[in-house]
């Protein structure tokens, strides 16, 4: 049984974070901060902002990333924007409204006070980013511009064309590089964390592999912060970068950290459809496009005409018809499921039949071609580059794709896992998005965690402990290193016939089929039979070229696939246990007559937290009960 003390402050929700800072958190004085070493794994928005902020405070920070530069982390690919309740549009926005939208969008499966804090910090993030020189879009008077996003009724999204993630990451990266230059942060690029070192139940450091030389080394620290992103690549095809993986999180799970809500996977409604078996990833088209694009399919399954020649009456604007109030701006899960639904009815378009139109003709007619183009310039260009079609001329084709994972390591209000000294921030924790994340909220959460929460909360833990108690001479480091080397050697010793890539593809198909956009008991149980069989085959028939003492990308990939194989099983298990529908987790057994997700608050208003029990043993389910004091439970309804 895990001890899950969520440390939620006992104070009214509006004051909870301030109360917590003032009354519950101890500080480390500036003279003492350099004595404490903090390891940050990952250099995306969460990792870079955390490492930079803690470095600037004076902590002795070491940051690790597997890419060749911290600037390449996948946060860079976020397109549309970042939410903040500035209420610049005077359209009724407020911290409360953003909290409400996030909690409602997450289908009431998140912790209220965490979500409120996120909304509260949102405005400071914009201020911080602008002070770094992030060039957000401006209006003619020089004030910041906004756009609207799915699932909300206000305009609160700040953006830099279609490259908001890139600009925010470059802001965090430049802050990180400033601290590297000041020797406050030591950066280790091309290093991958392969295990966590735990001594007497407390996190004491990590074991990493230098991806260029293959050298395996240990690093001790007073606290370890995982900012290692999401695990969407368990599906093989996703909008994640190729390198995104679950290894750091999964290794932490195996060392005692609880894994929360692993089955909560967001399927993004607007990605470019796959074109063939060789497809290596899916490219997202920002959902901000739904502001101006109208989604439709032909009403007739046998429609053969060019989409431009199909008259209005033969077009099925299914979102507008089914959800008149939100129309094309329904939340992501609703949009994704409806796309699958119309394609399953045979109305899908494109060579595979798995696609729907996203049409800009009406917006172009209303606002003019230049206005629409300037808003989405690089998205249109990206689409044309991939498909050879110009969205100004002919409707885009889109289809849902795995995009974001709400599940992650369980953390308390301080963002610490149940393993003392181990933190998880950004997408790698589970905390704020419940069962579904609203658009433009992931950047917000990563930066709230990194700039404003972890720099304060980590001090509370550190102040209660002596610095540098344990070094890499401790036997636990040697043991963990030996285990990591052993695993690498075992992978190389299989000498079978199939590549890691082929196993990854097969796992992805199993996950998409059995634990994808909609799920049911029978299918999940089948998935739970298929995955162990595939893992057995992996251990019997894996073919790995090269040797472990050099740059070996196949070896890197094989290690990640192995963790995905174990992790996929955990996801299916969670999806099976959660016998309700909520947010992105759609169990076919539980739906309203209109096909909406039907929650079961009586039995499932909890966070599922899985505890590792050893190889071949079923993990134990722990529950953190959720309470709904500020915002009473309500059925999610985007229709009226």
């Amino acid at each position, binding site marked *: 049984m895990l001890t899950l003390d969520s440390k939620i402050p006992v104070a009214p929700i509006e004051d909870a974070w301030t109360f917590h800072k003032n009354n519950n958190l101890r500080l480390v004085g500036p003279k003492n901060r350099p004595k404490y070493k903090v390891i940050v794994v990952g250099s995306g928005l969460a990792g870079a902002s955390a490492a930079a902020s803690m470095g600037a405070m004076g902590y002795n920070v070491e940051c690790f990333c597997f890419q060749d530069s911290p600037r390449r982390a996948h946060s*860079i690919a976020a397109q549309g924007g970042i939410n903040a309740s500035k209420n610049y549009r005077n359209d009724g926005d407020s911290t409360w409204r953003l909290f409400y939208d996030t909690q409602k969008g997450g289908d009431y499966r998140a912790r209220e006070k965490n979500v409120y804090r996120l909304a509260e910090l949102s405005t400071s993030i914009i201020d911080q980013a*602008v002070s770094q020189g992030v060039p957000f879009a401006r209006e003619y008077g020089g004030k*910041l511009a906004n756009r609207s996003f799915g699932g909300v009724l206000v305009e609160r999204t700040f953006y830099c064309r279609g490259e908001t993630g890139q600009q925010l990451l470059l802001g965090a990266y430049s802050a990180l590089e400033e601290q590297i230059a000041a020797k406050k942060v030591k950066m280790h690029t091309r290093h991958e964390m392969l295990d966590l070192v735990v001594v007497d139940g407390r996190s004491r450091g990590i074991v990493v592999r230098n991806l260029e030389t293959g050298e395996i080394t240990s690093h001790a620290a007073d606290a370890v912060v995982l900012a290692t992103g999401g695990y969407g690549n368990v599906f093989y095809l996703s909008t994640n970068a*190729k390198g995104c993986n679950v290894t750091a999180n999964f290794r932490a799970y195996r060392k005692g950290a609880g894994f929360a809500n692993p089955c909560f996977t967001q399927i993004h409604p607007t990605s470019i459809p796959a074109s063939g078996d060789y497809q290596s990833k899916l490219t997202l088209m920002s959902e901000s496009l739904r502001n101006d694009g109208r989604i439709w399919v032909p009403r007739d399954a046998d429609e053969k005409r060019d989409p431009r020649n199909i008259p209005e009456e033969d077009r099925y604007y299914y979102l507008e018809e089914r959800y008149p109030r939100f129309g094309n701006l329904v939340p992501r899960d609703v949009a994704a499921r409806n796309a699958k639904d119309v394609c399953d009815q045979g109305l899908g378009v494109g060579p595979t039949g798995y696609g729907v139109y996203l049409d800009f003709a009406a917006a172009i007619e209303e606002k003019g071609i230049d206005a629409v183009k300037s808003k989405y310039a690089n998205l249109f260009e*990206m689409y044309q580059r991939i498909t050879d079609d110009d969205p100004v001329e002919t409707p885009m084709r889109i289809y849902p794709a795995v995009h974001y994972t709400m599940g992650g390591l369980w953390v308390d209000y301080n963002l610490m896992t149940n393993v003392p000294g181990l933190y998880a921030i950004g997408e790698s924790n589970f905390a704020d998005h419940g069962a579904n994340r609203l658009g433009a909220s992931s950047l917000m959460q990563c930066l709230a965690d990194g700039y404003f929460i972890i720099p304060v909360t980590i001090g509370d833990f550190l102040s209660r402990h002596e610095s540098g108690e344990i070094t890499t001479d401790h036997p636990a480091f040697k043991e963990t290193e030996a285990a990591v080397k052993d695993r690498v050697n075992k992978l190389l010793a299989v000498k079978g016939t199939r*590549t890691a890539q082929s196993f990854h593809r097969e796992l992805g198909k199993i996950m998409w089929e059995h634990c994808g956009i909609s799920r049911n008991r029978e299918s999940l149980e089948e998935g739970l039979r298929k995955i162990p069989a595939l893992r057995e085959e992996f251990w019997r028939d894996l073919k790995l070229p090269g040797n472990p003492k050099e740059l070996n990308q196949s070896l890197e990939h094989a290690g990640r696939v192995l963790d995905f194989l174990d992790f996929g099983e955990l996801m299916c298990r969670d999806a099976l246990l959660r016998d309700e529908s909520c947010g992105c987790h759609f169990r076919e057994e539980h739906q309203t007559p209109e096909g909406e997700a039907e929650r079961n608050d009586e039995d499932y208003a909890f966070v599922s937290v899985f505890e590792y029990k050893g190889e071949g043993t079923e993990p134990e389910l722990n529950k953190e009960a959720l309470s709904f004091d500020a915002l009473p439970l309500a059925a999610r309804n985007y229709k009226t």
Partner: protein
Amino acid sequence: MRIKLHVWRQSSRSDKGHMETYELDNVVAEMSFLEMMDTLNEKLTVEGKEPVAFDHDCREGVCGMCSMVINGEAHGPKSKTTTCQLYMRHFDDGAEIFIEPWRASAFPVVRDLVVDRSAFDRIIQAGGYVSNHSGPKPDPNSIPIEPSVAETALDAATCIGCGACVAACPNGSAMLFTSAKASHLGMLPQGQPERFDRAKSMVSQMESEGFGSCRNYAECEAQCPKGISIAFIGRLNSDFLKASLVEPIDRRGDMKAQ
């Protein structure tokens, strides 16, 4: 499609390296260039040979990780396109394709097509930031910025740091990269206080990394996947000149809070 590939193979930093030739016959036009490389690597692995190491990550043209010189051009024949966003439809059936790593002494080859671009990070460390701590900041609307200024700053900030400009330049100069960052910050009000120090120290770091000097070939702009304009180089040169004339003493050491 059937294609013939000539690929640079180099087992380590110290290896001399050589070109090797491969043939692929199951290529389709809708494949991305890197999916074609995946296919090659799958084939090599199954045949018991070493796959080709290459850098890649986001595969949507924004992380800046992919880096191949294809038929003599950084990121290949299509303008304003990263390697990962290049599609096989841009090549003819039966095409012969030459693939090399970025070539520049400041970017040593690590293995095959993978190079070491850490020099870029060190140029940023020399001043590619606004000195800052995390914490309360003024409301952004208290410092209005003309939209055209913000947009031009974004034109520069859109640099993905891939290094194609260096690979494209006959001198291996990093001026386009350096000037893009210096101009992005130098145009915005937030970047003013350090503008001239920044210009000076970034340029001096660039020179010490072994990048060549700029001779206005403009190959960098032509091969930049983001179409960054060499006008930014002019801007940097102007700031650098002013910095050298007007502000001969760097007072930063004295001014920093203790």
